[in-house]
């Protein structure tokens, strides 16, 4: 399984990103880590190039929402990305808001899995389960 990951926008919070790479690695994924400060186009380009199964985006500094709104539009321009699993996690708003509010919103933006202030291992466990269930179908 191939995963493209990175931190979106002008965000330079790198710690979680480093840990996510290590953890995905340990879980047997083939990881393409674009690091921090990565724009949406770069994510999608990399996904196409690597034929990734999963695109896993982090956002910590509050920028997420601004970028997430563009996801659907941009993604539709790439015609090989229809089956890619879209994941986003981190601190997904400026200020405070509850997951109940945030998750549906981000699902509308085009994400399959949304983790607001969720521990990365819990999140990646969920991702693995999600992949298994999808493969069964």
């Amino acid at each position: 399984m191939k995963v493209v990951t990175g931190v979106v926008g002008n965000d330079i919070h790198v710690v979680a990103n480093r840990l996510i790479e290590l953890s995905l690695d340990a879980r047997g994924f083939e990881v393409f880590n674009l690091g921090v400060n990565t724009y949406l186009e770069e994510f999608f380009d990399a996904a196409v190039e690597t034929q990734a199964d999963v695109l896993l985006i982090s956002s910590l500094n509050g920028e997420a929402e601004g970028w997430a709104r563009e996801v659907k539009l941009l993604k539709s321009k790439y015609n090989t990305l229809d089956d890619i699993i879209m994941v986003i996690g981190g601190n997904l708003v400026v200020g405070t808001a509850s997951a109940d509010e945030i998750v549906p919103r981000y699902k509308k933006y085009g994400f399959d899995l949304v983790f607001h202030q969720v521990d990365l291992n819990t999140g990646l466990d969920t991702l693995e389960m999600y992949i298994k269930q999808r493969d069964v179908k």
Partner: protein
Amino acid sequence: MSLLQEEREIILNNEFIDPFDFAEVEEFVKNANEELFISHHFAKKEKMLVQPRGGFPTYEKQFALNEFFVEANVDVLPLTIDSNTRLNDYTTARKMLQLSEESEHDMLNGYPLVTHGYKATRQMITHFKKPVSLRHGTPDARLLIEVAIASGIFEIEGGPITYLLPYSKNFPLDKAFLYWKYVEKVCANYSKLNLPINRESFGPLTATLVPPSITIVIQLLEMLLSLEEGVKSFSVSFSQTGSMNQDIVMGSVMRKMAKFYAQEIDCADATINLVYHQWMGAFPTDKKFAQQLINMSTVIASMVGADKIITKTKEEASGIPTKEANAETVANTQYTLRILNGLPNITDKEEEEILTMEVKAIMEAVFNDSADTLWRKVFNSIKNGIIDVPFSPHIINHNEMITMRDANKNIRIIKRGNVPIPDRCFEYEKSQCDLGKSNTSIVNDIIHDIGIMQ
């Protein structure tokens, strides 16, 4: 006209700011009230100065924030700049400011100083008659600091290394050195007119498992680069490590080494201050716990004997703090400083010796680089990993050094990379750690080591 002045005229001549009246600004600085100079407050040495963090887009909101801070008995006001201005994107800053002014919604994460301009901002600053510290994170801060000083902001934070390695992935490091050289020179020149403008380095870096020796070396180098250009008042800084003893040792060594190296370049006349940042790493989400942590940081800052403390808020883990939470921290910190008395004298000779040896070894390696100027030596040393900052997102950083916490939560170096940590020190560092302990995964170990305050 000097080369510098030529450069200044180019920098200050653009469509984003009002015409810049050099003579008027000089006159203003010359006659500025001493209360506006943090160097004046440092000289009084009455108490540890308390400075929060914070910046809002509109003039009104920034004014209200300052009112809250003054009410809470603040010593130094912050002015935190929005991220568009930091990236010199003044067009977006202007647009977002307009949007912020038209609605209740803030569209910027700080005060767009260049857009507001120095005339308006000076009004606010002279109104409050408190020293203001400029917090930004800008690699090319030339225009920004010109506007800042013209506004009455007489402390400028940052530096070519500390505002780059933690804050940027791609910005060219060599350019950063040159842009900051400009900043130093301008600060130095203005300092001749009245009390000195204070420069402050950003010691927390990535706030994530950075070992004391790396922090101190970077503080010393930015200090030297600044003093070289004629700056007369400089603050070295660092943030809480997680071990009270390591903080105390670090503070003591940093102070001594700063004095030593300043003397080495014949700048013993400059004033060197020590600044302590309350815990800068991952915060607990429980606000009551966050308050405990903040209070503990204040106690440790007192034991370190810091000249200034920079505060966090109980809302750190969730998002940009409200002005209420921010003012609350200031009041609490002032109260704690007031009631904390009878501080013991603490020294740990062995730890100080080890740390001093490490610092001197790295400094020597930097000085031994074959380049002709200090900034090039430093540039080369970062490029070849003699200086290596854990968890820096910058492409130039080596990321070869690995650190972990020992049983007392001291940060220890367990892999040196290219950093010339002397063998004796390296053995000592490793001997403090239980290197075999890791029976869980490395990810969990790191999560544990960075999550110690949670």
